[in-house]
């Protein structure tokens, strides 16, 4: 009986996957027509990778880090420096020229992405040694500080020949097609899910629940914290690299604190401690910004201009929605649960009951 249920779920998942691939194929075939939708979806997928990696740290290991933007910057700059075509580099580094060591350093984008991840993981390993001794809000503010330091170093005029300082880098080659972008994002998330379900993942959760108890069970606190921090930074770096390929031109301002906040809001909205929540959150937040775009345009109803609707109103609505989630719906969309077909089935079955209960209470009120 149990076995049958599992195979049924696998079938559902396979159908869903094929459905997604079908939609992607359709979009890819008409990429000129749907370029706007494609760009939203790609951005969502990349944010999903970073959000899941943040969740790995915040939700599963209980380390509240606000350093995402910094590690994304490292990843993005690594990818940019390694993939900008060698013949166009002179025009990119038009201000101070390029350092001879990296002038002809070029590699395929998949290798660049792995190197981006490794580089940002290496930096994280160094930063982690002092920072991970701190707790809760001190950790948050220290990682945030490191992220700002990374940004300051990148935009320093002393590094003009490598990072092009405050002028940014452009001419980064785009994704060859949609499947590559989504495949890479999917792969990253899959790897993180496998990690969370492994014995390491269980150790992380033990740390989250109670550090002292975990230590008493023989877990080496520092080792596991450092491991979680390094792995999360690896995927954040890869995410940053993907973002660089997606945006095609980057500068250090992209990776300000607000980027970290955006990712944090995705994680909170999706549910702290839920991978599927983060993925859903990433798509909802990124698409939501676009859906709410009509608030930015002047609105006229019956010849009367509604004065509230003008540029910037969208972001106000957006932040009010997010505050509402934080205040009244603290668990987010998924809480700490994961998506499952049984869960979906239960949800659908429970809707008629809920409606019935509602109408009953209303009747009771009337009587």
């Amino acid at each position: 009986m149990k076995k049958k249920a599992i195979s049924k779920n696998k079938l559902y998942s396979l159908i869903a996957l094929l459905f997604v691939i079908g939609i992607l194929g359709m979009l890819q075939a008409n990429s000129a027509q749907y370029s706007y939708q494609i760009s939203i979806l790609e951005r969502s997928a990349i944010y999903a990778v970073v959000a899941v990696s943040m969740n790995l740290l915040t939700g599963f290991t209980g380390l509240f880090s606000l350093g995402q933007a910094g590690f994304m910057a490292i990843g993005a700059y690594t990818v940019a420096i390694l993939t900008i075509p060698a013949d166009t580099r002179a025009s990119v580094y038009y201000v101070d020229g390029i350092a001879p060591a990296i002038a002809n350093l070029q590699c395929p984008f998949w290798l660049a992405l792995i190197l981006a991840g490794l580089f940002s993981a290496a930096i994280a390993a160094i930063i982690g040694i002092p920072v991970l001794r701190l707790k809760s809000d001190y950790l948050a503010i220290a990682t945030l500080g490191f992220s700002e330091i990374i940004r300051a170093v990148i935009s320093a005029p002393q590094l003009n020949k490598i990072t092009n300082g405050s002028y940014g880098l452009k001419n980064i080659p785009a994704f060859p097609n949609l499947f590559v972008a989504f495949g890479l994002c999917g792969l990253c998330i899959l790897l993180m899910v496998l990690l969370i379900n492994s014995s390491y993942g269980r150790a992380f959760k033990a740390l989250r629940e109670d550090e002292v108890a975990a230590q008493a069970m023989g877990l080496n606190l520092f080792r596991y914290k450092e491991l979680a921090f390094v792995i999360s930074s690896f995927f954040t770096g890869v995410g940053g690299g993907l973002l660089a390929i997606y945006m095609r031109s980057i500068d250090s301002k992209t990776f300000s604190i607000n980027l970290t906040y955006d990712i944090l809001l995705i994680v909170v909205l999706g549910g702290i401690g839920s991978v599927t929540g983060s993925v859903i959150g990433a798509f909802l937040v990124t698409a939501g910004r676009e859906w709410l775009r009509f608030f930015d345009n002047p609105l006229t109803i019956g010849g009367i201009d509604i004065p509230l609707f003008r540029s910037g109103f969208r972001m106000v609505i957006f932040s009010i929605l997010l505050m509402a989630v934080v205040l009244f719906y603290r668990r987010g969309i998924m809480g700490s649960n994961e998506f499952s077909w049984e869960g979906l089935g239960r949800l659908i079955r429970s809707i008629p009951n809920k409606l019935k209960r509602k109408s009953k209470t209303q009747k009771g009120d009337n009587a």
Partner: protein
Amino acid sequence: MSLSTFFQQCLTGISLGGAYALIAIGYTLVYGILRLINFAHGDIFMMAGYFMIFAMASFPWFISIPLVLFITVVLGVSIERIAYRPLRSAPRMSVMISAIGVSYLLQNLATYLFTALPKGYPELPVLKKIYQIGGLSASFVTFLTPVLTLIIVYALMVLINKTKIGMAMRAVSKDYDTASLMGIKINRIITFTFAIGSLLAAVGSVLYFTDRMTVFPFSGSLPGLKCFVAAVFGGIGSIPGAVIGGFILGLGETALVATGYSTFSDAFTFVLLIAILLIKPTGLFGEKTTDKV
């Protein structure tokens, strides 16, 4: 660098540090009582800048300044009421996320209401008047800031150490539950703390923006973080600590700008933060806390 330039730079640094100190006190007070990094504090400071622009458009400065102080206090207290009070029993991370949310909301609201373009800060002729002392020349505000800061800090220390409400504040920050059992109205104390914090942020904003000349929606976020660092540096919860932290930050930053490393002036703050957290995690004057199992 000649001696007079050196003193000139010192004066600039001390003046900047004074404004930082006033904002840092807001952080330290709130953290001392709620154990919350009030991420929105920097944005309250920014909003005070905008309030001043609009107040000055229709009133003379001696009406505008009290008006701005009052509106800022109302803003600070209502933020506590709406965004933090419902989460009193929630985990600390939720409250912190709520604070980040408020900061995000205030920035977006400011962008919507006042556009993202920098707005000119009104010139207060009294504050802008240039004075010459020896070889140094600076506007009145540069001399006023450190003096005013020290006066305010002294008044605050008296308030906290000598008055009844100050005693209640100390009790709440020591032990939340016991304080409420002793009949202290916790919510009233927290409101009072936010009111003082916002008042000082408003004073700091007048001093800071008079020197900077423009306000834009994000002009509060970086000074906010820096002042939090100043508070941590001095030992969170300690008012003299926050003031010393503010002055060190202001002087260090000015020194970096003066020697041509201005891109690192923001990073300097965080280097300072990490250094202090490694050497003395409780800050200069912080109390040692121990974890209970």
